[in-house]
């Protein structure tokens, strides 16, 4: 009997599903080694099929996306009950991800913004004796680990094929790391970055630049060029894909295990190297970063210490 695995998506973009497909030929090895019993994007199993399974009969469920409505919450709990191991797949599941930025607002604010003068969704719709309901839309997005017990985390937006392959291999083998491990190196990205030798030993910045304001040099450390590269505060594992693409790291692999709040540490690292001791000048330099919450908490707002903007 082949081990059973399941994939599910909560509040996400679908990129993590594509990441599985991105394994290319290796997907066939995976398909040979396991029985995929649930994968809404690709296979036709239904919710009631999962409900019918015995508890713990799924070896591993790979759940991506954050939890932001009652349906996702229900499915997360269901899969947890049915699985031996739950892997938070991708940074949305690990830390809340980009959907997490909704925590700068709340349900009312989001609906008002999205639907404006249009027709707002109605939760319950009845017609001709049939009824249709929409899940409850929560005010607050949370990461998967907030609602169920998570065994392992695969960081990334999405996780890279290499990371996924390694995780699958570890799970199918006997070499399981301790529960709660993030399946990527516990060092910052600079370790892997091909540009790291070009960062001066004493880097202090007089200006920050945004990516549309400068054509970045292909070889030099992006932070040294004034771009807000979060590599120094981001976990390694992706082999610095974005810097290799001449773009600064945006932090999708989250923090190392030694950091409690990704955004706070990244903020500290960038602010500390501003080359000024004058409050007015410091403020002017920082005006080049107009959205600190978006920059520093792009993927990690729900998991941050504050978790969300204050509710009115």
């Amino acid at each position, binding site marked *: 009997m082949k081990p059973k695995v399941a994939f599910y998506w909560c509040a996400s973009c679908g990129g993590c599903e594509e990441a599985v497909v991105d394994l290319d030929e290796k997907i066939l090895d995976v398909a040979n080694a396991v029985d995929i019993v649930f994968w809404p994007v690709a296979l036709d199993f239904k919710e009631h099929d999962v409900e019918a399974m015995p508890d713990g009969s799924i070896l591993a469920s790979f759940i991506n996306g954050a*939890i932001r409505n009652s349906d996702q*919450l229900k499915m997360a709990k269901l899969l947890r009950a049915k699985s031996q191991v739950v892997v938070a797949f991708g940074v949305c599941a690990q830390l809340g991800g980009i959907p997490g930025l909704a925590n*700068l607002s*709340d349900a009312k604010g989001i609906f008002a913004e999205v639907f404006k003068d249009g027709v707002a969704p109605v939760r319950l719709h009845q017609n001709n004796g049939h009824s249709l309901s929409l899940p409850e839309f*929560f*005010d*607050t997005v*949370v990461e998967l680990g*907030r*609602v169920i017990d998570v065994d392992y985390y695969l960081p990334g937006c999405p996780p890279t094929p290499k990371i996924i392959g390694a995780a699958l291999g570890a799970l199918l083998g006997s070499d399981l790391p301790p529960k709660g491990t993030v399946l990527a190196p516990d060092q910052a990205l600079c370790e892997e970055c091909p540009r790291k030798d070009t960062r001066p030993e004493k880097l202090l910045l007089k200006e920050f630049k945004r990516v549309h304001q400068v054509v970045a040099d292909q070889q030099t450390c992006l932070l040294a060029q004034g771009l807000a590269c979060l590599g120094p505060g981001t976990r390694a594992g992706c082999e610095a894909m974005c810097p290799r693409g001449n773009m600064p790291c945006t932090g999708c692999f989250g923090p190392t295990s030694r*950091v*409690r*709040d990704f*955004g*706070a*540490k990244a*903020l*500290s690292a*960038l*602010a*500390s190297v*501003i080359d*000024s*001791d004058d*409050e007015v000048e*410091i*403020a002017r330099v*920082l005006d080049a*970063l107009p*959205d*600190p*919450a978006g920059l*520093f908490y792009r993927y990690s707002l729900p998991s*941050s*210490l*504050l*978790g*969300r*903007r*204050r*509710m009115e």
Partner: protein
Amino acid sequence: MPESFEPKIVAFFCNWCTYLAADLAGTSRIKYAPNTRVVRVMCSGRVDPQFVLDAFAKGADGVLIGGCHPGDCHYQEGNYKALRRFVLLKRLVKQMGIEEERLRLEWISAAEGERVKTVVNDMVEKVRALGPRVPARRKEVA
């Protein structure tokens, strides 16, 4: 908001200036609002933004950071690093809905016992007017 709201202010005081100033206020028997809880650090530069956010997250109504005046840092420049981080942190917490008056950076030298009183009393009153940091009714998913 309840009548008896007493703000809780977590204060990070640097050992050489602000902490000594607070001690001086003590030896001078200067009375001030009892709402601060001081965490002693060697330098305001030690104050990691994570500490500030943790304090707010765990229920602090206000956070006060006290360091040496510019140019006077016992470790030369630690207070400048604190200033740089503070300017950015202020903007971040504003986006998180934390009002201006709840996070404060003050330069207080070892001789300024009286200033500890003025700053603390002022901050306590401003934060009292704002109410508790986490309102009584919090909406979060279970």
